[in-house]
């Protein structure tokens, strides 16, 4: 799928820009570009549910990140980075990619997954759950317990943010 590869290359370039750019606001906008590129990828990979959720979640996290960066002192101080740490990180990443390619060869090739369990969902999904959108059939009926965990994650994040943000932590003794 050539169009997917072009989109992926665009996202990698945007990621490198987001990492290396000095101006903070610029890197936040670059992350926004990656998120929207990801939403495009989901559309190309026939996943409309995810495209909507990714797009909308991307907007919200962009607004929050811009608030955190603030407009005033947008430049991140440039420190002399130790060469040793860069080399060791790049070595680790090289090892990671090398071994993952050796593992990737064993996976079924791109485009034809073995769908042992998914086949049943596709065929008898609508008969057993009545939902035409099979992805929401899986989310809310076959694997509804994941979605309960999912709702709890968001609930924890809300309470966690409220706990971290509160003005005074300890009552003065």
């Amino acid at each position, binding site marked *: 799928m050539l169009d997917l590869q072009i989109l992926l290359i665009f996202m990698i370039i945007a990621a490198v820009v987001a990492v290396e750019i000095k101006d903070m606001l610029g890197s936040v906008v670059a992350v926004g570009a990656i998120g929207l590129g990801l939403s495009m990828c989901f559309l190309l990979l026939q996943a409309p549910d995810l495209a909507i959720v990714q797009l909308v979640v991307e907007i919200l996290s962009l607004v929050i990140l811009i608030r955190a960066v603030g407009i005033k002192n947008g430049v991140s101080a440039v420190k002399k980075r130790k060469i040793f740490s860069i080399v060791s990180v790049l070595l680790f990443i090289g090892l990671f990619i090398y071994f993952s390619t050796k593992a990737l060869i064993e*996976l079924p090739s791109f485009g034809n997954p073995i769908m042992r*369990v998914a086949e049943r969902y596709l065929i008898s999904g609508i008969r057993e759950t009545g939902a035409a959108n099979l992805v929401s059939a899986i989310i809310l009926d076959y694997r509804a317990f994941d979605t309960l965990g999912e709702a709890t994650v968001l609930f924890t994040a809300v309470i*966690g943010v409220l*706990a971290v943000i*509160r003005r005074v*932590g*300890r*009552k003065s003794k």
Partner: protein
Amino acid sequence: MLLMPLFVAIPLLGAFLNSLLGKISNRISDFIGNLVPAILVVLSFFSLFTLKSLNFTPIVYKMGGWVPPFGICFVLDGFSILMLITINIIALTATIFSIPYMEKYTDKWKYYTLFLLMLTAMNGAVLTGDMFNLFVWLEIGAISSYALVAFGTEQEELEASFKYAIMSSSASLFILIGIAFLYSYTSTLNMADIGKILLEKPNSTLVGFVSVLFLLGFGLKSALVPFHSWLPDAHPSAPAPISAMLSGVLIKSLGIYALVRVFFNILGVTNTLLNIFVILGIISMVFGGLLALYQKDLKRLLAYSTISQVGYIIFSFGLGTSFGIFAGLFHLINHAVAKALLFLNSGSLVYSTGERDLEKLGGLKEKMQVTAATSLLGSMSVSGVPPLGGFWSKLLIIISALNAKHFLGATIAILMSIITLAYYLKLQKMTFFGILRQQWLNLKEAPILMCISMIFLAGLCLFLGLILLPGVKDVFLEPATKAIENGVEYSRIIFENIP
């Protein structure tokens, strides 16, 4: 067995009710916060007896009524019930301890809500039989512990929580990549199903790569040495009952339990993997112990000692023999109880003196008898002084190391337990013995509720040795050892027991 989903439903309902009603008064959030762990302790003992009546064949609960490979299933076997009991008992003592202790913090209901969510995550992670579900519960436990570590909103706590959050969520991402590889290779997410298919496709390099990813991910969550640097900052800065839960059960249920379940029961354990466990265990033992000697801060010393004891547990699991697994499990329980007690003691010290630095404390024995006595019991149990539980488990670890011909490991284990004894004696001397300073003259003992929970845990430390008696052993430790020892047979046993 109808009760298994209640292990997750009750604390979840408690958390949501608490966030609804807890704002009204601290009394209500105290009540909900303590009622839920009490119910869960009763529930876990009840399910232990039902499991015993079925002589410990695993119970499989189909979530939503779907047969396992097509839906999520809960699996209750010897190892899960052992973890459930330890988690819920220590959670109950932590909530009783936090009734008076958390009065010093604002917004008590937020503390209880996050505490109950962390408890849900641990119960869910220990019970689940589905890989992605395990990842979701890991995430919930992690996110609630980030917020709880930063609950005091002081400088160090915020930095420690940020560092812990970054390391822990990148570990979760490595685990998610591992699950992605496993899903694509076996096209199922059910643990038993993955085990079955991996048996049919033996010795593939993909399983090796996925084992490395999981070792990285779960190793960071259980603070093994190369990835331990978040623990000495995160645990001391959390409120005392939370650091008791973190050191006592969170790194054990989300870290060590998941590591052992995935490697022993699903991916299958090869000799190279066992050797890696042994090496990591030894390094953690040595590293944690030596660093603990130089700590000036009370809670940082306890945090480094946690790393060292986790090293003991991983070392004994790495031996691979059933005796080694038995000793590892026994040490896991002993350390959970004793370390929770020690962190609660440090909490009561901070509550009355407000001081964590060992130099400024001294001779508190006269003023705080209960804390002094229980802290002595806890320290002696971790460092392995005879009558207490810790001695038996360290003894078993050393014996199993000798049986398994790991002489180097056995000698290091003996050396490190001497060093452990050294830094705990240092801790006792600097805080409780010695001359009493002027500023602590009018010091009073910690409130009664704190003393109750500390005395209960100290009693538990004292009588944990009895677990080795033949009658009691077969109920608690033997089924758990068999559950792990089955190894890759896990998938056949699970598929036999689907209702």
